[in-house]
């Protein structure tokens, strides 16, 4: 059986379509988050996702319906805590993240322990995605990408130098809120692809790879997208062909590309300053 034959399977097609949309959203946001030293916000919000999925399963409601508003509210909570709570962003992420995990464990315990459903969200299973999920993933990812496109200049400006952006009349509070809300949507979408445990990898690794070789900001965004889509598509195919876990395959392929880019930069472009 050849690769082209696998593409005939509807579940593979669904996984590839949803995976590509999510890969694009993650890679774009990842560049912004890593440069703003908010890499671990994906990790923190995925822990909140764990809590909200457990709540959804406990209430017998489709978990995404609970996760989306809860994680979006938590993302704004992190932002406000960092602004008003006299703490840095990493501490704010740590607080929200640990509360999310604790709430999840508590609810899993109340509902009689961890069940198969909860584990499927922890480690993801994109091959089981249905048509409705593909549609909602495509729509939400398109919203994320369109918003980044619309606010690209403002987002670039606050990412490079927030003080200068404010002195240029940009409403940085609004743009920051948009950025964390987009991250929240993306994290919820990503749990189906690589699972809650590995969400931050899909945000960080393509961006980190791009920074090894990028020759500009737009160039970094494009490279990150290419790396992300390649790793998701190849991860899905490899995992199906070799009967391996999909989420882990995507993350490990991502890491492999990162290592290649890292060695390429250190061996052939020693004068280049990125990725330090």
């Amino acid at each position, binding site marked *: 059986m050849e690769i082209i034959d696998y593409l005939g399977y509807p579940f593979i097609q669904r996984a590839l379509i949803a995976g590509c949309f999510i890969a694009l959203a993650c890679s774009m946001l990842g560049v912004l988050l890593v*440069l703003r030293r908010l890499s671990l916000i994906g990790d923190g919000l995925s822990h909140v996702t764990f809590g909200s999925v457990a709540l959804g399963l406990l209430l017998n409601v489709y978990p995404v319906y609970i996760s989306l508003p809860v994680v979006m509210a938590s993302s704004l909570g992190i932002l406000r805590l960092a602004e008003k709570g006299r703490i840095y962003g990493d501490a704010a992420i740590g607080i929200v993240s640990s509360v999310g995990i604790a709430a999840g464990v508590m609810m899993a315990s109340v509902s009689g322990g961890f069940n198969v459903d909860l584990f499927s969200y922890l480690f993801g299973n994109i091959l089981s995605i249905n048509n409705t999920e593909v549609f909602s993933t495509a729509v939400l990812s398109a919203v994320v990408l369109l918003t980044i496109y619309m606010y690209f200049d403002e987002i670039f400006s606050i990412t490079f130098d927030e*003080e200068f952006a404010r002195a*240029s009349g940009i409403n940085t509070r609004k743009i920051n809120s948009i950025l964390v809300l987009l991250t929240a949507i993306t994290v919820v979408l990503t749990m189906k692809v690589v699972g809650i445990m590995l969400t931050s990898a899909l945000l960080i690794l393509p961006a980190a790879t791009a920074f090894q070789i990028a020759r500009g900001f737009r160039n970094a965004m494009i490279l990150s997208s290419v790396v992300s889509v390649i790793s998701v598509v190849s991860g899905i195919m490899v995992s199906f062909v070799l009967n391996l876990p999909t989420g882990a395959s995507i993350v490990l392929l991502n890491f492999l590309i990162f290592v290649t880019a890292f060695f390429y930069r250190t061996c052939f472009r020693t*004068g280049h*300053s990125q990725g330090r």
Partner: protein
Amino acid sequence: MPAEVIKALDLSHSYNSAEVLSGITFSMKRGDYVGLVGPNGSGKSTLIKLILGLEPPSRGSVEVFGRGHKDLTDWNRIGYLPQKINFFNPHFPSTVREVAALGLISAKGPARTPGGKRAAVDHALELLNIADIGDRLIGDLSGGQQQRVFIARALVSGPELLILDEPATALDPETRDNFFSLLSELNKQKNVSIILVTHDIGSMGKFASKLMYLDKKIIFYGSFDEFCRSDTMTQIFGPSSQHIICHKHG
């Protein structure tokens, strides 16, 4: 259009209940070139932040181009160079051209089009003599080159008011002289108003039309000649300062 570019009235600011600026009242007219000097911790950068709306005043008000910050829409009329040490991430994967173009974020009209943007960036890079490094990454440049890129970012929109917080830091003597000449040219030929924060009070006499000496409040605000003749100067710097500082003038 109001004659005053900046009008501050009884401006005060506190950090954690410690007052760092108190009762600042002054106005600055179009074409004024003000050297803002004072010892470390005197509130120079805080005053700049209050003027730009980066910090809210604990008391008083400030207007730029006749408007409070909430009503101000023409942010492209202001060019700003922050203190470099506060903000720059040297690993940022951004080219010189991309960084310089950030100064056009609030631009209106032709400067927002791709062609207009390109032309404005080209012009700013040429002014600072860095057109040849436009495609290089900002992190790969020397400190002096980086500073010139940030100056280009402040100038790219053709601002009517330039606010520069210690711009000569990291510049070599030749580049610093060229830069000060460029500022004088912009001030004299295009009537650009300038506030320049510096520790080099002596060289301000050569360029600035006014001097503001700040130490949590305004100690002196007037021309450099007035400053040299005033008792304030000897009170601050001692009796021999007259010769040392004012000697450089002209």
